């Protein structure tokens, strides 16, 4: 996690150049996901501890589905961010809009898909 704290501004394009996320680089979503290093650490903590209350602290699933890269392989970053922000009506997945910004949701979606929250 500390690796990412030092990252400072994190921009989608950086990841693409990084060679870390080739598939996402092709994705239609080009919105910028900027969060500070401090906020990245806080978001990582939030995902593990609070999303973890349904999805498991290790993200292997619980009442909610697993959130490991394999489980999210079929979904684009933008779609995952959408679920985070809007929730899934009729299920316990709540909308996080209001608590998380769009950039933060995108950052979380990308971090989940790349397996950087563990």
């Amino acid at each position: 996690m500390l690796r990412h704290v030092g990252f400072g501004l994190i921009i989608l394009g950086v990841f693409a150049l990084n060679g870390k996320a080739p598939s996402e680089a092709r994705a239609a979503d080009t919105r910028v996901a900027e969060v500070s290093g401090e906020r990245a650490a806080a978001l990582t903590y939030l995902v593990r501890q609070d999303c973890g209350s349904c999805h498991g602290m290790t993200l292997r699933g619980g009442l909610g589905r697993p959130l490991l890269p394999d489980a999210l392989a079929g979904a684009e970053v933008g779609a995952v961010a959408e679920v985070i922000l809007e929730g899934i009506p009729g299920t316990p997945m709540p909308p996080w809009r209001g608590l998380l910004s769009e950039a933060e949701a995108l950052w979380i979606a990308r971090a989940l898909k790349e397996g950087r929250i563990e």
Partner: protein
Amino acid sequence: MKSLTAALAILLLGFCAELQAAELRGTGDLGIVIERASGSLQVIDVTQRRALGRVQGLGDLSHASAVFSPDQRYAFVFGRDGGLTKVDLLTQSIVKRVVQAGNSIGGAISDDGRLVAVSNYEPGGVRVFDSDTLAPVADIPASYGAKGALSKTVGLVDAPGRRFVFTLYDAGEIWIADFSRGGDPVITKFEDVGALPYDALITGDGRHYIAGLFGEDGLARLDLWAAAPKVERLLDGYGRGEEKLPVYKMPHLEGWALAGKRFMLPAVGRHEILVVDADTFQEVGRVPVHGQPIFAVARPDGRQVWVNFAHPLNDTVQVIDVPSQKIVHEFKPGPTVLHLEFTPRGHEVWISVRDSDKVEVYDTRTFEKLAELPMAKPSGIFFAARAQRIGL
């Protein structure tokens, strides 16, 4: 001379350790605090308000709970990763550990103390073990529908008569597994209990099993004393069609409160505690509270109910005075208050505060803080006194 002193010191230390191990003591006022992020727990002395020692190697404890043997010496700890661990409170060590499934959510111990049951998400169902050896006794896959899909199971409790009762989250069913005849359990199923039952409880007398519904406003109740038990709806449509507030953490029903002649339970998607008459099961009031309630736990005498809350309002605890249904005290231990446990007679309450890595102990009459114990990311607090109570 130096080496002689050292040798003596070592001898003395060894002697002291031996003395300590041989010290006679009861375990009735011991308990455990789960350290959710490190796969460990601490054994605590509730009377002395101190930690006795840490036990490690319990796997993923991110949603862990525990039950106790009837002699109150052993804790059976249910981990998220399917781990079932038997811990000796006296020696603060692991007696036996099995990983019995891939993903689990709590368990129960039978009234005779012989069987330990675990509720599993993966594979969905309940597995039952011998409490002495943790050897498997029964496997109850929660299969439902024409295709026999497996449902996640929740709300597993013990019921009098060597029975376990649990709820199928995906299927919307309640099952009773009766082990009273020995051998394979007799399973009784109740279908269509309501949408997305997320947790359940059994009342302290072992009579009513009540499942909370996430998918609709209401609860499902099963009267286990009835000659032919059937599921009845409780508080049907308590939201009156109003839009629900987002629920950032599922409420828990286990600690729900029978306070005098009233139940107090967390509403879902509403910042309210619902007050229900314990005889008629009709709603008799609501108490507006700080946020989405998670636990609403009655002090054992029933005079107060203490409530904690879901993210992002999880830094606060409120205390409801039951006779007046008013909030008489509010305080902020800080983020994130995960659990609270009363001493058996209710004079003190222990509260886990995850983000500040401590457990706090309060006087329930003066609300004065009596102690703070350092713990790593503490979550569930379980006192051995639970061994003597149905459904815990």
